[in-house]
């Protein structure tokens, strides 16, 4: 098992642990910082779409940014 895979697994376990232990709910009036655009997972659709489009025209890996479109003929 490579170091990268071990780190990936560790990250997944930590994330999953966070989900499991997240029963202490954050109330709506406590979410001021969470509402910042900097805390969003996809803050700007157009920028993200442009980035994933040109990156996928150069890299064999894809995914993780929501549903995929039909790609392009960029070579």
């Amino acid at each position, binding site marked *: 098992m490579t170091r990268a895979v071990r780190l990936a697994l560790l990250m997944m376990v930590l*994330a999953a642990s*966070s989900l499991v232990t997240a029963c202490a709910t*954050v109330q709506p009036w406590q*979410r001021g910082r969470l509402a910042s*655009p900097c805390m969003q997972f996809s803050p700007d*659709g157009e920028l993200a779409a442009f980035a994933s489009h040109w990156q996928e025209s150069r890299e064999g*890996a894809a995914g*993780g940014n929501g549903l995929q479109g039909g*790609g*392009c003929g960029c070579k």
Partner: protein
Amino acid sequence: MACRAAGVAASNAGLLLACGALAAAIGAALVGGGPVTAQQPAQESYGISMHTFTDSRGVTVLSPTGELNRDFTTRTGLRASFGVDAISAASDSCVRCHPDGANNARAYVNASLFRKYGDTKVSVGGEYSREAFYSATTGSTSISRTLNQANTTIAGGYAFSLNRPVLHPSDEDVERQYAHSAFATITQTVTKTTAVQVGYETSRITGYQNNPFLRATVDGLRMLGNHPEHRLRHSLTAKVRQALPGSTYIEADFRRYTDDWQVRANTWSAGLAHEFGPRLTLAGSYRRHEQTGASFYQPVYTGQPEFFTADFRIFPFDADLYTGRLNVTPKQGLLAFREGTSLTLQYEYYRNTTKFQAATFTAAIRVPLTR
């Protein structure tokens, strides 16, 4: 020149089709309600962006885009965007046969309608794109639901794409490629300052997957590649957002990618953002991508291999991406746009170990539809 003319003609036709599709989508949204997307911006707005891309092969792309986010009722809304990629000196694979370069243009339009049912959001959408030697039609749907007093969001979706590459230099030999993809994510608020998201995405691609432009060396001869007609892809993601004291935020993302062509990739990114008051944000991030080559990749082929490739996307390589972004929202509005209008400027620099480098620059304006 014939290539260029064909490209321009095709792109014009694509643009007309794209505009027609956008009008139809907006019309449908105005007439009736419909289902919708899982990830919607919080505010009604329209946006105009200009993206530029240039790389070490001499390729330049200008991409003006437009975007609309509109709520028709408290439960129903529309998100639509359209754009054009104007490409000059279209890549070294074109330059091989067209020493003076070969221009191309790609036009696309997409739209999705969403509708809320209590804590559940449903969306349906589609996208159409067309360029000189490729067209793609996609239909998609997604659903999301908030739980645990809105501290947890689960989402899932499915998309189908029919892609039609043209076997250039022929304008008549059109192949077909089918892509099914699905995803699921869980987003969790962990504390008042921490949010995490884990996700899984898979796609199954069948049909023509060769590259009609790139040639591999097989027994000393330059030949078009031959790829398998089936590919199953998986990606697993984990993302963390953490607010720090003093209006500073950090983000960390990881993606593990695998497929049955034996491409394996780890992609990491980390970023830092700081809000200098409510109207100015500066952000920077670094992304590292490491991937193995496809099982049938070789620099040079000998004998009679079943599969061979010259597609640089499935070569083994590492890549680095540096991004800087500025977002400003002037108090009195921006130029002739109303108060609340924001301007985003973003620069990216990319390089990988195949001696490829690229840079992008984006200027984007987002204007609220209501004060």
